[in-house]
């Protein structure tokens, strides 16, 4: 068996008196898409944010390769490899194009290449006509699509998606499913928290539900082999 990218153990988080999360083990594997469901307020967002290094848990150990680190120590490594997509994404007060280029520019891509990549991504997300609009004035679904594009373009090892298809129209949903599938098949680890089970269960390798602060495995209705999936969505 291959080693996981990140292996979280004993993750706990409380707000006031309430123990929100108390998770023994949470594994992030390359090339695996994990769907996390749960009722409103179950803690999906909190869990994803902890895994993404954005919210500090009350306790957690993170194994990265052979080293077992505290969450605070692991943060830097997490940041380098993971991009988190907000449930209600924040649009930077600039054009759509620059919003999408933001992460790439940090990675010091050469300028010409950068804008080619951005242009491709815009086309994929059917946002090219909006490239020079201020991202703040977009519609709800358009924002969601910009945010997803902004996240995937960085090409991280792990993508943590919090309700990625919320507000999206039918066509965008389908391309999002296809994208997730393709990226996973390229070897990316994908974590999705969502209420959109209908659309996401067919793609996910694991489906786990957050109940009472614990993760419970849900048997998928049908399980396809990796091979069939690759042929169905050739990326």
């Amino acid at each position, binding site marked *: 068996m291959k080693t996981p990218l990140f292996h979280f153990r004993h993750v706990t988080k409380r707000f006031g008196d309430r123990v929100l999360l108390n998770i023994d083990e949470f594994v992030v594997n390359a090339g695996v898409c994990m769907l996390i469901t749960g009722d409103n307020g179950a803690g999906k967002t909190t869990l994803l*944010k902890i895994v993404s290094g954005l919210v500090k848990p009350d306790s957690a150990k993170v194994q990265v390769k052979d080293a077992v680190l505290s969450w605070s120590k692991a943060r830097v490594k997490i940041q380098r490899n993971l*991009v*988190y997509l907000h449930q209600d994404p924040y649009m*930077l007060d600039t054009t759509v194009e620059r919003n999408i280029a*933001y992460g790439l520019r*940090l990675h010091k891509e050469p300028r010409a290449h950068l804008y080619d990549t951005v242009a491709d991504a815009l086309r994929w997300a059917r946002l090219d006509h909006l490239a020079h609009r201020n991202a703040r004035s977009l519609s709800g679904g358009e924002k969601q699509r910009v945010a997803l594009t902004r996240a995937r373009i960085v090409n991280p090892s792990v993508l943590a998606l919090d309700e990625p298809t919320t507000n999206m129209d039918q066509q965008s949903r389908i391309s999002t499913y296809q994208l997730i599938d393709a990226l996973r098949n390229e070897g990316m680890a994908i974590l999705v928290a969502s209420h959109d089970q209908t659309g996401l269960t067919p793609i996910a390798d694991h489906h786990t539900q957050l109940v009472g602060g614990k993760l419970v495995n849900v048997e998928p209705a049908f399980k396809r082999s990796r091979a069939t999936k690759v042929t169905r969505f050739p990326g």
Partner: protein
Amino acid sequence: MESLTDASLKALSLLVSGDAELWAIISISFGVSFQAILYTTPPALLTAYALAHFEFPGRRTLVSLFHTLLAVPAVVVGLTLYLLLSRSGPFGDLKLLFTQTAMVLGQMVLSFPILVAMGHSALQSADQRVWETAYTLGAPPLRAMFTVMHEVRYGLFAAVIAAFGRIIAEVGCSMMVGGNILNYTRNITTAIALETSKGQFAQGIALGIVLLVLALVLNYSLSTLRHRLAMQA
């Protein structure tokens, strides 16, 4: 006694026939205050960001302290600096008293708390998600800071404008450590104080109008620039 209308008319006629002495006074005013703002803004905004962003014990007390420092009279800052720079004070050897450098130093001290207090309240109003977005997309801490600052730039801009307004309008500190020496450390406000003490209200108001007009031109062009940039983005 001279009426307000007379004084204002006199003031206006003085304005149009600007002479060399007047321009020396104006350029000292703006030169000193620009320098002060220029040197103070970076450390002050860094401090404001630290106060808005990092949790540490005593943070709230520090924020209160900066809000309080706004209430320190300019002349008290001037006095303290005077005693430090005086020939018989600890930094007397630097021979900075009654120089423009001393005025710049004084105005830096005066503008620092305004920039921190107003900058902090602008940065605090930034959405937590800005920082999270920057961070998760791979921004190192400094870059994430600039992203947050960019998102609240109008608030920071207002802070800089307010700080500039405060120091170009202050007289106590400049008078104290500058000494109001003609053609050397006499700026608009110390000149106004001088004219006023002579009972020359018209000249005082004239200089006040000069200051107002120049500040208005400056401000309006900045606001136009900012507006144009906002349109582009």
